[in-house]
């Protein structure tokens, strides 16, 4: 599924935009001008990666500082141990579109349980 996120001009470099879908997805605009999309929820616990520390092509989780590579989703070190799911991004006529991945998300246990059990 392809979903429009926001206009590129509305997302300054170094910033992130969170799409409130379920599970949420975040779009990051790096300082080098690249755009990436990953699942917004950290794979360790319930933290929003859009609130994290963006540096180069990595975002550091705002809570316990695991870093995720925006290109591959790979995590550098604990406490998170699983990669975050990545999504393809297209920019067309100044609009950022996210092509949602069909892989299963790697949600943290607390969030996965909430989704499985219906609305929080």
């Amino acid at each position, binding site marked *: 599924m392809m979903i429009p996120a926001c206009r590129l001009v509305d997302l300054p470099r170094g910033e992130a935009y969170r799409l409130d879908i379920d599970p949420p997805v975040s779009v990051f605009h790096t300082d080098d001008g690249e755009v990436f999309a990953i699942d917004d929820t950290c794979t360790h616990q319930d*933290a*929003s990666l*859009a*609130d*994290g*520390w963006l540096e180069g092509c990595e975002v550091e989780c*705002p*809570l*316990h*500082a695991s870093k995720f590579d925006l290109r591959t989703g790979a995590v550098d*070190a*604990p*406490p998170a*141990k*699983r990669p975050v799911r990545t999504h393809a991004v297209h920019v067309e006529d100044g609009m950022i579109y996210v092509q949602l991945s069909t892989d299963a998300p790697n949600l943290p*246990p*607390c969030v996965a349980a909430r989704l499985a059990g219906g609305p929080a």
Partner: protein
Amino acid sequence: MRTVAVVGASLAGLSAARSLRKQGYDGRLVVIGDELHRPYDRPPLSKEFLSGSLAEADLALEPDGEDLRVQWLLGVRAVGLDGPQRAVRLADGSEVRADGVVIATGAAARTLPGTDGLTGVHTLRTLDDARALRDELALGGRLVVIGGGFIGAEVASTAYALGLDVTVVEAAPTPLAGPLGETMGGIVSALHTDHGVRLLCGVGVKGLSGRSRVDAVLLEDGRSIPADIVVVGVGARPCVEWLAGSGIALADGVTCGADGRTSLAGVVAVGDCASWYDPRAGLHRRVEHWTGARERPDAAVTALLAGGAVEPGAPRPPYFWSDQYGVKIQFAGHAAGADSVTIEEGARDDHNVLAVYRRSGHPVAVLGMNQPRLFTRWRKQLAAAA
């Protein structure tokens, strides 16, 4: 370097082993730890593991499939270090000779004198401690926590959620005044009273009463607080006794330079046992935070492999978190030395405060309660200003 010995098999030791391999060290790597467990994560021991929402397997710090080519010597204590030879003596009489040594023996919970031998009295530092405490909390009853620091506060919050009757006793007039300052220490520790947990401040503990099992905590002002379970959360001391006689410089922990190098060549120290030089403050500080134990081994390993030929980069301001009563507490920087603290966002009654500590107008620390986004912005700013 053909052999590196890491002493202490927890977060700092494992992070050092990872950094060694990442930085290209290809030789023999021995990790010595006195606990029987492979490295596990301690923060959940007072939170999700204690409450039962996280299982033991979830505490592992090594992801499946990670292979650092480490020779693990677990369940054996290091009892001495021969400085010039760089040989680590073990309790079983054996010895590990190495070209490089990483000291990562962490810290141990302090105890109160005269509390040995009574059942129902706990400290919390290890997985075994947490298992024992979890089993007792499951029985319910009255819990008295001695010490209103972070570990004590987290245990109180978890036990409250489990339905126990909880009292926290703190000797200082304000809990957490050391790390957070008086004002914010007061605001954060008000979480106890906001939830109906009793908080008794400014009163010391004289002793415990009970025959074989504890039945009360006796206070210096003569009061006696009935207790079925007591948790002693009065801080931690660095595990460095085993280094006595090695010639290594010790003060509060192992005295280190700004890159973790100790007074002995080929020996570095990391994590809760290490007191690194802070060039900005011009003094040594021992920091007992998870992120320090995880991040600093990188610099220490660089120094170890290079023999000290590189200039250490400026470290990030220290950062820690705590979870209490469903509130995410985050702190970065140093509160000591601040001359003002202002609440920039949120309200104390809503438990969503963002407070900035300043010295002569410059931000030196930031505290967040349920403010991860703003907190990260300020944390970045502190690092940039450093």
